[in-house]
């Protein structure tokens, strides 16, 4: 069980859940506001389940590291408050995540549970992709995010992603560096928690 790989998975889910939550109250239709909330809750739940494979206190791992110790992929960190980019990210992330999660299922029992819950996310993302595929701004967003999407996966899994997405493999934006917006995200994410001493109850 590769701890770094699992930490990357958990951090990805935590941060994309945070980004998806930014749509609360402002999604294009109320129905999508509700759907995004469900997806975000699932992602937070997945993050927690994977953190718990690595530690007793998921909250400490989720919140108390300095930003440069997070292993999330730059794709999930990007601040994308427009629908075309958001759906493009959702779709690319779900396709990549399916590849990653199914590969883990043999060794990590909770991966099967995550995979089953993600079926809904895939259905949702595919529904939107089909609806928006003719929109130039959606196609543009997919092209822009493609190098980031590749960076979600280990190099050996990227050919599969390229086949499923229907784009040629390009140079990936790799894990290990953080998008500029990540420090601000982390700051806001932890502002309440940092206001009390470590171990305070909430």
């Amino acid at each position: 069980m590769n701890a770094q790989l699992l930490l990357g998975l958990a951090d990805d889910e935590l941060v994309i859940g945070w980004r998806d939550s930014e749509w609360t109250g402002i999604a294009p239709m109320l129905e999508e506001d509700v759907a995004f909330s469900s997806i975000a809750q699932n992602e937070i739940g997945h993050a927690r389940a994977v953190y718990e494979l690595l530690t007793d206190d998921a909250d400490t791992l989720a919140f108390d590291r300095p930003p440069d110790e997070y292993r999330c992929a730059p794709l999930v960190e990007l601040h994308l408050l427009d629908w075309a980019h958001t759906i493009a990210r959702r779709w690319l992330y779900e396709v990549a995540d399916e590849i990653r999660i199914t590969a883990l299922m043999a060794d990590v029992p909770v991966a099967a549970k995550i995979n089953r819950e993600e079926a809904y996310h895939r259905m949702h993302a595919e529904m939107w992709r089909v609806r928006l595929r003719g929109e130039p701004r959606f196609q543009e967003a997919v092209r822009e995010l493609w190098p980031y999407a590749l960076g979600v996966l280990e190099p050996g899994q990227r050919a599969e992603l390229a086949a499923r997405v229907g784009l040629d493999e390009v140079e990936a934006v790799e894990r290990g560096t953080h998008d500029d917006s990540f420090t601000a995200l982390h700051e806001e994410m932890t502002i309440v928690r940092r206001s009390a001493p470590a171990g305070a109850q909430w």
Partner: protein
Amino acid sequence: MIWEVFRQERRGQPFEHAGSVVAPDAEFAEAWAREQYGRRGESVGLWLVPRDAIHDVEDWADEFDLKYRRVDGYSIKARLKEARERAATARAR
């Protein structure tokens, strides 16, 4: 398009009307109805029906007494009491 939503709470229960969602097609209707009527696991099944497909029936003639077709059309207390009393008397003789 308006889709009427019928939900089933547990296996074996009837599908009951729960409300409606507005969606461009069956896929979106499903995704959004799942959220509105099932995100807490409160439904085991949903039927989504375009409102236009619903055939509305609202008028009923109620001219003559139809009580003979229903339980409330029968009052057996008085006669049952009389029959029991007669049988008791007959036994006593």
